[in-house]
C-alpha cells in the first residue's frame, strides 16, 4: 500500500487513528489536500518543525475545518484545479460538537468536500471528556461513574442521520477493523460529486482503556455486537449494510474496556448492560443487520 502518513508521529502506541488516516490516504491517493481541526490527530502529526503528512495539509482551529475546506475548494476551483480531492479528517469532538455549525454550512452549500470523522467517542486530546459521540453508560472524565452516576446518561448523537438530513449524497460508517470496506467507502465518497460524510470507529487505547494489541479487535467487536453498524446512505436511501453472521452479546465488547468496568461492578450494572444491548438490538432492527 502507498503510505502518505509518515512514521515518527506521536500517537499513542496502539492508537487506531493513524491506521485510519493511513487507510484513508491510501484510498484517496496523493492528489489530495486535507484540512484537520484541532485534536489528537493534529497534535500528534504536526509538532513543529515536523509533519507526518505527505499530502498538503492545513490546520486552523478546532471548530472550523469544514469552513476552511470550503474555502480551499472554491479557491482551487478558482484556479481551475477541480480534480483534487479535498478531505477533512477530524475527531468526534470537532465534528459532532464544536464544529457542527461549520459542517452544517459546508453540507448546505454543497461543497465537494469529503468529511471523515475518526470517532473515538470522547475528547481524547484533552483527557477523555464526554463528547456527544460518547455512548450511553460510558465512564469519561466528565461523566465518571460513581455512587450517584452510571456514566454518560445520553445516547450517541446520530451524526450520519444529520448528514443525511442535509441531503449529503454519500453518507457511510466504517471501522478501522474493516480496511477494505473503509477504503472502498473513501473511494465512493470521492467519486460522488458534492459533500460526503464518513464516520469511522477508531478505538482509543487511553480513553477506552484496553489491553495493548486489542485495538482492531475492539473495533471489530463493536461491529459484531451491532453497536457500530456499517452502512451506506446514497442520496438519502439506505444502500448497503454489513450483515453480521454471528451477533455477539454486548458484554463481550464492554467487559474488555476500562470505560465500562463499572457496569460489571455496580448492582445496577446488569440493567445498564441490558439497556446497551437494547441499543444494539435496535440497530439490528433498523438496519437489518442479521438475516
Amino acid at each position: 500500500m502507498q503510505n502518505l502518513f509518515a512514521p515518527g508521529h506521536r500517537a499513542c502506541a496502539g492508537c487506531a487513528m493513524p491506521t485510519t488516516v493511513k487507510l484513508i490516504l491510501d484510498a484517496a491517493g496523493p492528489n489530495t489536500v486535507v484540512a484537520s481541526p484541532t485534536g489528537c490527530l493534529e497534535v500528534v502529526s504536526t509538532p513543529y518543525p515536523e509533519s507526518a503528512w505527505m499530502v498538503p495539509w492545513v490546520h486552523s482551529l478546532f471548530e472550523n475545518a469544514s469552513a476552511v475546506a470550503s474555502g480551499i475548494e472554491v479557491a482551487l476551483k478558482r484556479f481551475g484545479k477541480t480534480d483534487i480531492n479535498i478531505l477533512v479528517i477530524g475527531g468526534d469532538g470537532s465534528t459532532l460538537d464544536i464544529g457542527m455549525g461549520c459542517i452544517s454550512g459546508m453540507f448546505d452549500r454543497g461543497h465537494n468536500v469529503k468529511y471523515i470523522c475518526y470517532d473515538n467517542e470522547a475528547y481524547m486530546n484533552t483527557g477523555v471528556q464526554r463528547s456527544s459521540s460518547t455512548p450511553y453508560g460510558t465512564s469519561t472524565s466528565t461523566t465518571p461513574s460513581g455512587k450517584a452516576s452510571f456514566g454518560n446518561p445520553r445516547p450517541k448523537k446520530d451524526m450520519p442521520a444529520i448528514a443525511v438530513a442535509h441531503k449529503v449524497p454519500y453518507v457511510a460508517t466504517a471501522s478501522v477493523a474493516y480496511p477494505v470496506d473503509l477504503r472502498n467507502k473513501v473511494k465512493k465518497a470521492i467519486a460522488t460529486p458534492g459533500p460526503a460524510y464518513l464516520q469511522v470507529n477508531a478505538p482509543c487505547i487511553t480513553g477506552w482503556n484496553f489491553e495493548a494489541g486489542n485495538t482492531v479487535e475492539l473495533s471489530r467487536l463493536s461491529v459484531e455486537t451491532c453497536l457500530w453498524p456499517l452502512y451506506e446512505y446514497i442520496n438519502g436511501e439506505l444502500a448497503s449494510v454489513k450483515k453480521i453472521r454471528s451477533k455477539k452479546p454486548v458484554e463481550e465488547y464492554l467487559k474488555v474496556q476500562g470505560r465500562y468496568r463499572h457496569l460489571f461492578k455496580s448492582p445496577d450494572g446488569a440493567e445498564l448492560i441490558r439497556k446497551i444491548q437494547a441499543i444494539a438490538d435496535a440497530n439490528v432492527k433498523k438496519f437489518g443487520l442479521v438475516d
Partner: protein
Amino acid sequence: MMKVIEGSHAVAHAVMCCRPDVISAYPITPQTHIVEHLSQLVADGKLNTEFLTVDSEFSALSSLVGASVVGARCYSSTTSQGLALMWEVLYNSSGLRLPLVMTVANRALGAPLNIWNDQQDSVGARDSGWIQLYAENVQEAVDMTPQAYKIAEDPDILLPVMVCMDGFILTHVYEPVYLLEQDKVDSYLPPYRPAVVLDTANPKTFGAFVDPSKFTEYRYMQWDAQIRAKQKIVDAALDFQKIFGRYYGGLIDTYHAEDAEIMIVTMGSVIGTIRDCIDSMRAEGIKVGLTKIRSYRPFPAEALQKALKDASVIAVIEKDTTVGNQSALLTDLKAALYNSKLRMPVLGFTAGLGGRDITVTDIRKMVEISSRAKDGVAESDYQFLDLKKELL
C-alpha cells in the same frame, strides 16, 4: 470618475477593482450594503470571483483561511458582533500570516443591543495581529482598500488588514467619490503570488503546532512584521498618490498642527466635523490643531511623538472605552509619550458611543476643557464627553 454614490457601494467597487479571488461574508448591519453590492456585481457579470454566502461570520473568515492558504486573494466585511464572533479566527489568520483584507463597518458591541456606530469592535481587536487602518471619509475607505492589499501581501509583511470605516456614518452616506479606475488599480496592485501554497505538487503542512521552545519567536516575528509595516503603510500611501493623485498622510496626518497649542488626536469619520470646528475656532484665535490616526495598528508612536512635541495640551477623542481603565487610544498614546521627554497634559474623551452624534458643540466643549487644562486647571484626565448625567 467622480460620482455621488453610497459609501458601501463605493467600497464594493473598490474591492472589485482589487480583483479578489474569493469573497466570503455573512449579513450584519451596517455592513450588508457592501456585500449586497458585491453580490450584485457578481450577478451582473462585472465581478468574476468566488462568492461564498456562509453560515456565520466565523465561517466567513474561516473559509478565507482555507482560500488564502491555496493562494487566493480574499475579502470579507463585517462589524460588531460579527467581528466578535470571528475573534478566534482573527488571531489564527494573523498567526498563519495570511494577507486577508476585511472592511469593518464600525459598530457598537452589545449588550445592550445597539446597531449604531462606535469603534469598540475593531479597537477591541487591536491585539489580534491585524493591521488596522481607519478611514476619515468614503474616499479614504475606497482608497485604503487597494492600499490594504498592497501592505498585506508584501512578502516582508504578510499580515491581514482591517479597513475600518464608521458604520452608517460612512457606509450609508451618499457623497461625491472618485471611483477607482481598474487600469490604475492594476498598475498599483500586482497579482498576489505567494511563495508557498497548499499544493499537491509541493505538499507542505500549514499551521503546525509550536511548543514553548519556539512560540515566543513566532509571536516576535508577527510583532516585528507589524513594526516593519509602518514604513510599508507610508510607502503604500505615497505609491498610491503617484498613480491616483490622492494622499491622506501615512501613519498619521495633521491639520493646523504647526502652531497648535491644543492638539486633538482621533481616528475615523469624526475628523471631518473636527476639521470644520478647527476652521471656525482658528478664526476666533483659538490655536487648535488635529492629529489624525490612519494606522492604529501598528501604532505610530514615533510619528505621534514628533507631531505632538510642540502642543501644550493633547485631547484624545475616541468612540470606545476600556471598561476598568481609560480608553484605548488614550492609553496607547500616553504609553508612547511616557519615555519621551514630552510632558504636556493628555486628556481623554470617550464620545459617540452606540451611534450618539458627535456635534460641533461636543468638540467645542472638549476644546474648552482642554484649554483649561493647558492653563493648569486640573480636571479629570478621562471622561465621557457627552454623558447624560440626568439619566444616571
